[in-house]
């Protein structure tokens, strides 16, 4: 059987890569991709702890379902926002969208 900490380390690596993507990318859609990687890392952790610590209960799975739903909602609203921003500014490079930067 696979040790629990292998999953946790892979999820931590995935989360860190996503964090790097969120902080370093200039394109808004690429930033959202980093967020997706982070959400996936969280979901791996939730399901790993469910499998290893409480496989007979449903709490871990219920949490995971909610994370999936929130991720889907977040992506749909985020991409709609980017399309609206693109329509107004003709770009979604975050450096150039500085309307609220003072």
């Amino acid at each position: 059987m696979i040790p629990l900490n292998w999953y946790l380390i892979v999820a931590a690596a995935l989360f860190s890569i996503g964090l790097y993507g969120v902080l370093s990318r200039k394109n808004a859609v690429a930033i959202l991709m980093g967020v997706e990687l982070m959400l996936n890392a969280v979901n791996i952790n939730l399901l790993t702890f469910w499998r290893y610590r409480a496989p007979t209960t449903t709490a871990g799975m219920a949490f995971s379902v909610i994370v999936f739903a929130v991720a889907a909602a977040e992506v749909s609203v985020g991409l709609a926002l980017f399309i609206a921003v693109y329509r107004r500014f003709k770009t979604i490079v975050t450096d150039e969208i500085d309307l609220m930067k003072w």
Partner: protein
Amino acid sequence: MTAMQIIFLITAVVTLFAAFRTVTTPNLIHAALWLILALAGVAVFYALLNANFFAVIQVVVYIGAIAILMVFAIMLTRREMRDRGKQTSGRWWWAAILGAVFFAGVTWMIEAVALPSQPTAAVPASSIADLGKALVNPNGYVIPFEVASVLLLAALIGAVFVAWTRHNS
């Protein structure tokens, strides 16, 4: 080393490499395709965790819907098909340092805690049925479930409203 562990390690390498390419490749369409590979690797992890339902949901929701939505958004928000210039901000090394420090800290924390290498019990055969019942059970998770439903509806309406073309303004 068992076959499961070998499958796990191969999947981990593929997933992390795909994730790394997702955040580093300058071409956004390629980034979306690498993202699909990384999400497929995560689906394999779910299957290894005996969470078969979530492996299927991962493929349907993430790869089938979210990644394709990303490809649409990339194609709708580019003036030309090629991405010009640098795709990372000037202070990308700060992000790299932060990511490395975060990973090192979390790994140190994981290694400091004694974690089991074996699950406490097998997954019951009725786990998906139990999940379905728990999600609509008033003593279970019906409130989070309904809140998630309302959130999805609000996101649907909000996305349509935000991306709406107003011809008269």
